[in-house]
């Protein structure tokens, strides 16, 4: 629906559309290409960065976000940040799962019964 209303306001030259389409095509090739490399924990980040770039291009040019009311752009960016929060915090868990922070200090009371029993 928005396409119809927006196209009244702003018409992009064909070459921009083709350029973006080319860029998306190249990025798709890169997506496939990087899948052959292993970056360890960075795998997800690289994949997401490429996907986010593609999504942004589509939103900016094909969906005319770049030429529309800046409020919509703000909402779009905020939603990306919001997604980044969800993924980022979840990765704080999944990427560090099982890492135990061993804290060892001297006993508070050397004569405590528990330490005698251990001996």
């Amino acid at each position: 629906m928005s396409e119809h209303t927006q196209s009244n306001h702003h018409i992009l030259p064909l070459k921009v559309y083709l350029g973006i389409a080319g860029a998306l095509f190249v990025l798709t090739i890169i997506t496939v290409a990087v899948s052959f490399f292993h970056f360890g924990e960075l795998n997800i980040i690289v994949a997401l960065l490429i996907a986010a770039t593609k999504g942004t291009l589509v939103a900016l040019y094909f969906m005319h976000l770049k030429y529309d009311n800046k409020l919509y752009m703000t909402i779009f960016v905020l939603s990306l940040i919001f997604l980044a929060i969800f993924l980022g915090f979840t990765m704080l868990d999944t990427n560090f799962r099982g890492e135990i922070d061993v804290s060892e200090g001297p006993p508070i009371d050397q004569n405590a019964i528990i330490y005698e029993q251990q001996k």
Partner: protein
Amino acid sequence: MSVAQGVNYLNEDKSLKSWLFTLDHKRIGVMYLFGVMTMFLLGGIFAILIRLELLAPGPDLMTADTYNQMFTLHGAIMIFLFIIPAIPAALGNFVLPLMIGAKDVAFPRLNLASWYVYLLGAGFALFSMLAGAADTGWTFYTPYSTTTSTSVISMTMAAFILGFSSIFTGVNFIATIHKLRAPGMTWFKMPLMIWALYATAVIQILATPVLGITLVLLVLEKAFGIGIFDPAMGGDPVLFQHFFWFYSHPAVYIMVLPGMGIISELIATFSKKKIFGYKLIAYSSVAIALISFLVWGHHMFTSGQSELAAMVFSFLTFFVGIPSGVKMFNWLATMYKGRISFEAPMLWALSFMFLFAIGGFTGIMLGAISLDIHFHDTYFVVAHFHYVMMGGTVVAFFGGLHYWWPKIWGRMYNETLAKISVILVFIGFNMTFFTQFILGSQGMPRRYFNYLDQYQPLHAFSSYGSWVLGLGFIIMAFYLIHSLFRGKKAPDNPWGALTLEWQTSSPPSHHNFDEIPDLDHDPYDYDKLMVVDDKLIRKNGQSEKKETTVN
């Protein structure tokens, strides 16, 4: 200009069709009210049955399986069908346009649609109950939810559908608050209830879709064996908890924020004093909404989440205490040296402050990892949750219901019975749930069907409390229903409040206001204005406006 005498939104067309197809926010609010109250009754019956079963150890009333289904239904119904829609969709729908001086919400048809979607969701939930109710708890944790043979799919579909209802309401409220405020009502002249509803709507729109995604993923795994949460298929069960709590933690603020909005109105109105720290209360609502998205991992300290994530989430959790504390202290400061009157809505508000303080503090305790390791999955958590959700949100909801009751129905209720009811609820609530803090700290696990004999006295006391609580609500049902038919006619402004909804008739006409309200005062200008016989009077004795009322 004025509407014919006595014609209002309730009596202008009494046909069933006029209700079912109404686009009037007030009627939709009233229909929501009936919906959520029915669900409250249903969830409440389950609660009483649970407590009855726990009166003594061992199976008494029901089997262990039935018990599991009971507490799941209690939780799911109370959360998804009562608390979440109770304040925004029922009370909020009614008062939001009135408070900002609008004729209706921005999208009346979407508003009606949200009610029908709510009904559809409720239908799915009821179907699930009849078709072997889910026994997973309201959280639907994997791997149990993907392996149990009970009707998890229909219950999750119910929650999924209800999510849309919630989103519709949120979209509507944001658009309404942005676009339909009366001339002169700037952002900082809005009543604080509106700020709270606005913050709530933001969370509804941002978080609810994630619940939808989560439940769809769950159904996909359960129905088609796609490995998302099952480690045997390359999934991660803790991932479900991340998804679930990313919605469900902000969701508890969907529940409590509008409650805080109500309390801001009640405290100011019944203290007859300008609210203390208006801007801070407004900002703190928004701050709570934002921080609520950064703390979900505190539900997962003992779920196998990484230590690093646990530390970060624990640290961030403490920040929620700041805006909540800001609100509490501002309400207290508002009451200080005010002309406080103790009508029933104010008693609900004071109950809220007492109970929410306990709920909040125990939340901080649970946010500390070292304590949580001990308290996790015990009755301590159950007690904390009920202090925040019931002592907070539900108590605020009933405070709001009593406060706006004269506006909604144009009739007063029996004040003495209302006071008895709130006092019984307060006592019964503390008997039921404070006991559970003690049970939990002694190690009684939550959701257990049976328990050791040593816990019996406290369990019994908690069950007795639930009867006192139930009695309070039965009395309330009695006098509120009585008020519907026989209640004394309410004046337009029975509490002497200054917000706009009190400057139209009780009940309001179809279009809320005969004229676009002329806003020449702040919502809490009790230092400058007073209400005498439904008319605003300047404190120096001059009439504020010649005609402030419709009739």
